[in-house]
């Protein structure tokens, strides 16, 4: 494992000379993404407050940027890029499928309960 690191990110757009250099490169990327998140969170641009698929566009942006960060932490810091395809799929697909299902079923139910409170005969405002 020791000497065979894959050194390109962005599908080969950026190629690093050594593993150490790649680590610093990924740090810079993660820092940029986090800074973008924090700046967006502070200024909250007006056009991003529109609702899209029952969530604000801003929140969708945050979630997508989080997944981008998660990808680089897993792929470069945890060396997933250098593991075999089988190991990568065993770990990532298992987690992704189960988490997607869990999120879908819970948030679906939560929306139902919200509607029951909102339009039903339950009084909470006292």
């Amino acid at each position, binding site marked *: 494992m020791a000497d065979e690191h894959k050194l390109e990110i962005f599908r080969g757009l950026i190629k690093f000379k050594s593993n150490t250099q790649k680590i610093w490169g990924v740090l810079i990327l993660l820092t940029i993404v986090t800074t973008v*998140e924090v700046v967006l969170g502070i200024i909250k641009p007006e056009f991003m407050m529109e609702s899209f698929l029952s969530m604000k566009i801003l929140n969708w942006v*945050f979630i997508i940027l989080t997944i981008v960060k*998660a990808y680089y932490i*897993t792929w470069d*810091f945890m060396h997933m890029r250098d593991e075999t395809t*089988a190991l990568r799929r065993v770990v990532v697909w298992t*987690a992704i499928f189960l988490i997607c299902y869990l999120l879908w079923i819970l948030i679906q139910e*939560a929306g139902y309960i919200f509607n029951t409170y909102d339009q039903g005969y339950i009084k*909470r405002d006292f």
Partner: protein
Amino acid sequence: MSSTVSTSSQNEGWSGGNKPMKASYGKLMMWFFIVSDALTFSGFLAAYGFSRFKFINSWPIADEVFTHVPFVHGQELPMIYVAFMTFVLIMSSVTMVLAVDAGHHMKKAKVTFYMFLTIIGGLIFVGSQAWEWATFIKGDFGAVKTYGGNIIQFVDADSDHRVALKDFAQHIPSERVQHESKKGIWFMSESALSSYTLEEVIQGFEASPNLVVRTQIIEDNHKTVLSREESLRVLRENGSYVVEGANLRDNEYGTPLFADFFFFITGFHGFHVFSGVVLNIIVFFNVILGTYEKRGSYEMVEKVGLYWHFVDLVWVFVFTFFYLV
């Protein structure tokens, strides 16, 4: 003779020394653990999402809750400190991966140095989280809880800024003290009294004509502010008791579920960071003692590194769902 052949090939496969998926036993087991732990955390975060969508129009706004930075007083600086914490954790992930890299090249001094930095980063993070908790528990403005379990907060009608209880509550002389088991009936006690009674808050509110009440309900990304008459009515008729700061039962910023999930999830994550620091310290001393040098491989650094990066990975999600979204 075919059976003999298959037996011998079976023995080859099961006699050890194999690396399925080209990962050693220890690394594979660490991945198993990480996947299961990731599912645990996603269970928690999904439950948080459930509660949040259940109270989608009354959930506390994180920007109003976490506004503090150590040594900076009287300013509202949302997200600055937590961004710093995130950066510290990512940075300690970087030093960890540099330690792993140095381990691959069998450079003991470099591994020692980077492991040391990783431990320091982890300690700064855990310390920051403790401070964050303390600030949240202490609270800053105070609020009143209604009989219906809702939180009402006090704002200045002109500026829309929140006003702290201590700035308007009146002092009514009272003999009331906290009931401790050693003072009254020995099997009864109560939790600490709030700094002001509901009566003092109501009188103070009546005496300050520019104050109004803000409810939990969000409309157009802002909490609803009531008119002065409506505020007085709600406070007098629905006010139940004074809430200061946050705990598992009450939360001055809104629904108690927010505080419950905050304490539970960041607490569970903080416990992971703490365990990671302990593991890192053990590995750090083993590096110094030359255990891995003698073993001829620094794979243990890599395994503990996987765990450490995972903790960072979880924080990235906690950061998004508690502070940003």
